[in-house]
């Protein structure tokens, strides 16, 4: 498909046109913070924000979702499974790192046994990815082989270039959306292509100047369990951890959830909600918790992202370098510090 373009001014019209047909999820600013949310006429769209607080994960794997509802009438219980998504929707403006995050979730939820709720959303969702123009100090997607200027595996990719956005459909779904956009899109010309190439080059140059430009994953990856698991480095690293769930809940790849019941008075709604392996009651069982110290819980999170996941998924890390945890950890701990602490220790350097 040929490169198209749309002016920034035309975006509201585009949103309205899409939203008339499908749900449109995009970065919306509420009370000073930008998160993915449903578009409506009054929504304060913040498409150009580099990072939403939470990733776009909610669009396919919401923080809380009902699985089924039990209603009691007299002594009879009726179980009504929650309907799977059967309507098309568009997630607009996902960055390359978050698109990669969705690929990580696919590995978990789309391999057997398939998670039908997730699968239904993936089947009905159209992803419009947006290339980065100005990555910031906490970005390190390059370490995972992600090019922020070329989001992979999206249905449509858009590139902001000055007051225009270049638009390219990548899949059939993307073409359908392009058709829906209709006359709001015009064909891009050679000048646009040149401007786009310049913009990409600029973004790459920014990437190289950022503090995490030289970050590598040396020493991490599949089959590193034995050398990492018992390392004394963990014991030193975890001390500041508050055991909160911030890193988990802003992460585009964390996929653990808890299943709980909500008493509605007329019965029970069984729902699942994100859970965090940092929480002391994570996977709590009758006998207690299989990880009963914060060090163990802290270790679990990073080992999972950097060792266990690649071990089980052909080397794919379950971190995409979005840097949200770097920005948001209340205790200023983050995955980069963990990666580097081990690299230093393994090189025999002192901290």
């Amino acid at each position, binding site marked *: 498909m040929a490169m198209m373009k749309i002016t920034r001014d035309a975006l509201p019209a585009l949103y309205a046109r899409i939203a008339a047909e499908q749900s449109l999820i995009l970065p919306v600013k509420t009370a000073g913070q930008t998160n993915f949310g449903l578009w409506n006429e009054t929504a304060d769209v913040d498409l150009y924000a580099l990072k939403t607080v939470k990733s776009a994960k909610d669009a396919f794997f919401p923080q809380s979702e009902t699985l089924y509802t039990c209603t009691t009438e007299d002594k009879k219980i009726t179980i009504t499974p929650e309907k799977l998504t059967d309507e098309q929707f568009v997630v607009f403006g996902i960055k390359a790192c978050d698109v990669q995050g969705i690929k990580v979730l696919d590995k978990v939820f789309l391999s057997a046994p398939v998670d039908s709720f997730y699968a239904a959303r993936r089947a009905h969702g159209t992803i419009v990815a947006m290339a980065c123009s100005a990555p910031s100090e906490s970005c390190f997607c390059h370490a995972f082989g992600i090019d922020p200027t070329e989001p992979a595996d999206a249905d449509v990719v858009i590139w902001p270039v000055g007051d225009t956005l270049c638009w390219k459909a990548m899949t059939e779904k993307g073409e359908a959306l392009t058709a829906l956009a209709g006359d709001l899109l015009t064909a891009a010309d050679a000048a646009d292509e040149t401007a786009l190439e310049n913009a990409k080059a600029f973004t790459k140059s920014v990437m190289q100047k950022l503090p995490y430009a030289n970050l590598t994953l040396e020493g991490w990856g599949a089959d590193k369990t034995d050398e990492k698991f018992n390392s004394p480095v963990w014991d030193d690293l975890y001390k500041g951890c508050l055991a909160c769930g911030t890193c988990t809940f802003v992460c585009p790849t964390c996929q653990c959830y808890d299943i709980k019941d*909500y008493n*509605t*008075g*007329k019965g029970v*709604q069984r729902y699942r909600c994100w859970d965090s392996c940092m929480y002391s009651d994570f996977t709590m069982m009758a006998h207690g918790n299989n990880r009963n110290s914060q060090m163990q819980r802290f270790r679990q999170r990073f080992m999972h992202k950097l060792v266990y996941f690649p071990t089980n998924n052909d080397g794919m890390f379950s971190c995409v370098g979005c840097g949200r945890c770097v920005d948001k950890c209340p205790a200023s701990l983050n995955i980069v510090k963990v990666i580097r602490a081990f690299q230093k220790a393994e090189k025999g350097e002192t901290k």
Partner: protein
Amino acid sequence: MPLNEKTGEFTPKIVAFCCNWCSYAGADLAGSSRLAYPAEVKIIRVPCSCRVNPMFILRAFEKGADGVILCGCHPGDCHYSTGNYYARRRMTLLFSMLDYIGVEKGRTRVEWVSAAEGVKFSTTMNEFAAKIHELGPNVRLEDLRCKN
């Protein structure tokens, strides 16, 4: 279901926590004196007003109550001597917080009713129910999951 299925009128759910020693007995006296108040009011017996946790009150709203009232012995007359003094501070602060987050004033109330004040119990409940009728259904503190 706040609306009466037959009449379509708003029939609020009102939870009244009553201490065992004064207010519950006051409610009994209202009953034996045949002093009517709306059937919307349902009483939960607690040993003392100080047994009422703010979480119970929020819980009631969550589950669809439209008004919550707490009745206890008059200050100075608590069966446990000091319970209602603690309840008084707790409820004052809680109600102030509810007001602060935009819950309508008057959806919560504390009234001291002695075992001898059947009339006061009945008057209070009538007044409170009238207030809740005036305020309409609680929408600011309910959990939508309990709606259907």
